């Protein structure tokens, strides 16, 4: 049975309806309407099936968070051994000598080279990516665009191992020639000087291969972002008498700035963590130097890969600590990248 309140409310609204039926006009003064209009709480009552389903989905969603947390936790736990041995020295020492007494583990030189090769790789890849993305969006013949996109994606799908093999056996001899030429003729630039004329396994060679590996990632993101350029602005530039490149420079590139930065950072993150291609090519060295053309470089990921086989318990703990450092580094870079892309004018619709 309906309560009095509801009955009155229904009656009064029915009254209004009746009046409308008879064709009499009526103006409505909202202040004398007795019916309250507080929003009602709408409770979802789900069937049992749906409750299980939603719980499972939530579990799935949270599993990502859980996994990441676990990774951080376990790596940290396993590194405690080496931290108790060398303490903060891990972050200040340059040497990695498990057989010394006392054993020395330091990540500084390795971190230095990791960052250097990644930055050089990005410096090479970023302009090429932007130009390639522009080609895909503006300059290429329309019929070729689909296949070209597929080729870029294919480059991304090639395993790191293959890049390493190709880089070592095919590309390196060519790059060595360039490196030699640079060190001979361009040594006024301190970067290009060498102490000994060995050019294999250098930061330069590793960086070039890394650049090729991150190129597809950055290109895809920049392409997606460029495709979102508002057509009205592009038309406006052309209607003012601009050439195509003028329109690109004044409308498309400023619009894509967020995506370019975010995409580059994602590429940087990928370069930082790249393992096998680097491990195959490089000639490990723990010396910090600006001589990128000379043999001898390093990276945290390749260190772990190469030293794992012969590691004793303490060394293993040191490798775990190195892994933790890399984990935090790449996570931070990737977070910032997603943030930059999402916040930018261009990134609103992009899946980075």
């Amino acid at each position: 049975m309906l309560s009095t309140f509801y009955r009155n409310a229904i009656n009064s609204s029915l009254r209004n309806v009746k009046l409308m039926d008879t064709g009499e006009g009526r103006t409505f003064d909202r202040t004398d309407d007795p019916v309250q209009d507080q929003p009602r709480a709408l409770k979802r009552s789900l069937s049992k099936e749906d409750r299980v389903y939603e719980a499972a989905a939530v579990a799935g969603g949270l599993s990502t968070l859980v996994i990441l947390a676990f990774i951080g936790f376990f790596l940290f736990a396993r590194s405690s051994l080496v931290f108790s041995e060398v303490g903060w020295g891990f972050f200040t020492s340059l040497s990695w000598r498990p057989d010394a007494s006392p054993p020395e583990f330091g990540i500084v030189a390795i971190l230095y080279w990791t960052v250097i090769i990644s930055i050089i790789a990005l410096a090479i890849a970023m302009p090429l990516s932007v130009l390639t993305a522009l080609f895909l969006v503006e300059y290429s013949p329309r019929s070729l665009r689909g296949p070209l996109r597929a080729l870029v994606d294919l480059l991304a799908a090639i395993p790191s191992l293959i890049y390493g093999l190709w880089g070592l056996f095919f590309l390196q001899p060519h790059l060595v020639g360039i490196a030699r030429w640079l060190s001979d003729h361009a040594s006024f630039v301190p970067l290009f000087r060498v102490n000994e004329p060995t050019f294999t396994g250098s930061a330069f060679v590793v960086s070039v291969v890394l650049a090729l590996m991150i190129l597809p990632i950055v290109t895809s993101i920049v392409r997606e972002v460029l495709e979102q350029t508002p057509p009205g602005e592009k038309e406006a530039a052309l209607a003012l008498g601009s050439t195509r490149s003028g329109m690109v420079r004044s409308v498309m590139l400023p619009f894509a700035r967020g995506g370019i930065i975010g995409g580059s950072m994602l590429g940087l993150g990928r370069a930082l963590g790249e393992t096998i291609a680097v491990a195959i090519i490089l000639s490990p060295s723990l010396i910090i130097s600006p001589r990128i053309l000379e043999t001898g470089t390093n990276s945290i990921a390749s260190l772990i890969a190469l030293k794992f086989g012969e590691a004793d318990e303490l060394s293993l703990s040191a490798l775990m600590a190195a892994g933790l450092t890399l984990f935090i580094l790449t996570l931070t870079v990737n977070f910032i990248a997603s943030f930059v892309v999402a916040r930018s004018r261009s990134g609103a619709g992009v899946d980075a």
Partner: protein
Amino acid sequence: MSTVLSETREFQVEPASGTLIADAVSCWFGERKVLDRVSLEMRPLTVTALIGPSGCGKSTFLRSLNRMHELVPSARFAGRVLLDGEDIYDSSVRATTTRRRVGMVFQKPNPFPSMSIRDNILSGRKLSGMTTPNPDEVVELALTRAGLWKEVRDRLESAGGALSGGQQQRLCIARSLAVDPEVLLMDEPCSALDPTSTMKIEETIKEISDHVTVVIVTHNMQQAQRVSQQCAFFLAAENQPGYIVEVGETRKMFSNPDDPRTEDYVNGRFG
């Protein structure tokens, strides 16, 4: 009332600066023809309004006047468009030069949001490769002609995207004027704006027609009556290409047109 074109397609009158003549312009998108041999003379320093129901190819015609039509990949074109007697579609003429001489204002205002108001005005000159020895004067003149100077003179460095819709449209007009065009094409410039802004823009149109030839596409017949001196009425049957039914002085077109279809349209019997 009639066009200047004679049987032999020669000109009898010396074209003044800012004379735009369309000579049997046809436009296609792929296989679909949307304009059929439209000819029209747009007299210098006057406002010509292109009216007609939607879908008749008025905008396409407008865009063929400054070579924006060909930016669509499947677009095709036939005929000639003569600017001061010279065919802008000739292979010796660069499209970018034409677009500087024949400016365009679009339906949706599109100032460059990442640039300041001042940079927006100067952007046209920069993009079309003009040198600007006196940028402040150019900015002031363009904004004054567009009727926006008093409102924004104190905030020339603020972003172009931060203005209201009507102000943005006047900014776009100023930007187009800054490159010193001979003709200004306007594609339904007020349809996205409120009535007050519309009024301001109509005032602006009347003023700038002292310096540039104006061709305006509009759905609003009252607007055509208010701003234009000459009108061209476009029509298209379903799935047929558009064409001009009648061209004439605005006053005559709206009071005493020659063609019965024109009369039906301007009296609101269809549209």
